[in-house]
C-alpha cells in the first residue's frame, strides 16, 4: 500500500497529539472504533465561551490513514463553532488525504469522532444547565462514546 504525501506528513508529524481532562465541563470527548477492528480514535475538543473550539487533541490506535485522518481533523475543527464542525464530511477528509478506497473507513471514523466529541460536550452542557455537576468518570465517557 502506498500512501499520499499528506498521509505520510500527518503520520510522521502528527498535529495536536494529547489528552484533555475528560471531566472538564468545557471538554468534549469522542472515542470511536474498536480494537478488534484495528482502529480506535479518541478526539477531544475544548470549547471557549464564545462557542468556538479553542483546542482539539487526539490519540489514535490504527493504521497510518487513521492516524492522519484524526490529526487532520484536529487542525480543521480549531476555531470553528460546533455547528460548523458538524458540517465536516468524511469525503472532504478522504479527498484532502487522497485516501484509497480501502481506507475510506478511516475518514468515516474521523467524522464520527468529531460528532461524538461534540455530542459529549453538548450533553455535559445540558446536564450543567439542568443544575447537575458536570463530571463523568473516564470509563463511562468511553462507553458513551
Amino acid at each position, binding site marked *: 500500500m502506498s500512501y499520499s504525501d499528506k498521509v505520510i506528513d500527518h503520520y510522521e508529524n*502528527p498535529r495536536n497529539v494529547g489528552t484533555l481532562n475528560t471531566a472538564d465541563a468545557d471538554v468534549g470527548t469522542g472515542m470511536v472504533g474498536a*480494537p*478488534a*477492528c484495528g482502529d*480506535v480514535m479518541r478526539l477531544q475538543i475544548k470549547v471557549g465561551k464564545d462557542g468556538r473550539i479553542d483546542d482539539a487533541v487526539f490519540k489514535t*490506535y490504527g*493504521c497510518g490513514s*487513521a492516524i492522519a485522518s484524526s490529526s487532520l481533523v484536529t487542525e480543521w475543527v480549531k476555531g470553528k463553532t460546533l455547528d460548523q464542525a458538524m458540517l465536516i464530511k468524511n469525503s472532504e477528509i478522504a479527498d484532502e488525504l487522497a485516501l484509497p478506497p480501502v481506507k475510506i473507513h478511516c475518514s468515516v471514523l474521523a467524522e464520527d469522532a468529531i460528532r461524538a466529541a461534540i455530542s459529549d460536550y453538548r450533553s455535559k452542557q445540558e446536564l450543567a444547565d439542568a443544575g447537575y455537576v458536570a463530571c463523568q468518570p*473516564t*470509563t463511562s465517557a468511553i462507553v458513551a462514546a
Partner: protein
Amino acid sequence: MQTMLTNTEQPIYLDYSATTPIDPRVADKMIPYITQHFGNPASRSHAYGWRADAAVEAARADVAALVHADPKEIVWTSGATESNNLAIKGAAHFHRKKGQHLITVKTEHKAVLDSMRELEREGFEVTYLDPEPDGLVDAKKFAAALRDDTVLASVMYVNNEIGVIQDIATLGALCHARGALFHVDAAQATGKVDIDLQRLPVDLMSFSAHKTYGPKGIGALYVRRKPRARIEPQMHGGGHERGMRSGTLATHQIVGMGEAFRIARDEMPLENARIRRLRDKLLAGLRDIEEVYINGDMDQRVPHNLNISFNYVEGESLMMAMKELAVSSGSACTSASLEPSYVLRALGRPDELAHSSIRFTLGRYTTAGDIEFAVNIIRQKIQKLRALSPLWDMYKAGVDINSVKWATH
C-alpha cells in the same frame, strides 16, 4: 555475494518467508540456459534438446536429493500453488469413487484452502481442523477426523506466518493407517527442516523454488512411486512429466531450482545455526518490551521466523513507522481485505493482538548489524506509537480494554 542488500536506500529485508533473492550462484547457473542452451528439453532429435534435457534431469536429481526422494518422483510445476492444486484436486478426482471426504487445517496456505473450497463446490466434504493455541495440530483430533471415506489429508510442514513445524511423521502414519493419502505443503520447509521422504509417510509434497533462494515461477510436486500415489492431471497437453503436468519445461527456471536446492542441502546445517542465533538475538532485543506476545510455539519452529504482537500498536502503522525494515504484518490493512490474519485468529488470538502482529523472517543475507539496527528502530517506534495510542493510555490507567463496550464497525 554479500553485496545485494547493502544499498542504504533500500530497507533491511526481513521478509524471507514472502520470497528470497536468487542466490548469485543460482543466477549464474541459470543464465546460459536463457541464451546459449535454449533448447526444448522435449526435442529428442538434436543436441539443443539433449543439452536442455540433461540440465533438467540433473536439476531433478538435486531437488530429489534434498528431500531423499527418487528423481522419478519429482514433477515440475509453476510453483507451490500449482503443486497444491495438482496434489489435492488431482488425488481427489482420481479417487472420487473411493470416497469424497478430505481433511485439512484452518492455518493452511490459501492455495490449499481454496483448492478444498473448489472441491466442496464439486460435492466433496472437507473437515477444517482447528490448530492448538501454539499452532500445532493435535494428533488425537486429527485421528478422530479421519473416516473410512477420507481420500486425502493435507497439512503444511511449516506455517508461513508463524513458522511452526507440524509433526508430519505422526500425522502421516495416522493417515496411512486409515488408508488415506497424505499431502504436505513444504514450500516453507526446504532448507529449514531436514526432510526425509524415505522415512516420512507422505504421498504428495509441494515445493517452491523462490522461498529457498531460487527463481519465482518454478516449483515441484513429489508424487510417491512405492506405493504409487495416483493423481489426475489438472493441465492437459503434450503429456510432459509422465502425463501429470503438460507444458514445455522452463529449463532455466528448473536449473535455478536445482542449484538452489543443491546449495540448501550443502549449507543447511551451518546456515540454520547462524540464522537461529540472529533470530534469538532479535527476540532477546524485544522481549523485555511491555505487552509483547509471541505467536506460535517457539520450540517446534523454523529458526528464521519470529512472529510477535506488540499490544496496543496497530501492525500496519508500525510497518509504516519502521520504513527502514521490510517486514509483514498479520493486520487487516496489509491486504485489500479488512480482516486480520486468519492464521492468528485460528490460534484463538484476540483480533486486537492479530492486528498488532509483525512477522520477521530472516535469511541468508541477514547480518548481526541488521538485527541490532532493527531492534533499535522497533523499540523507538513502539514507544512513539504507544504515545499516540488511546488504548495504551487506558492500559496504563488500569482500564481493562475487554470490559469496554466498543461500537464495532
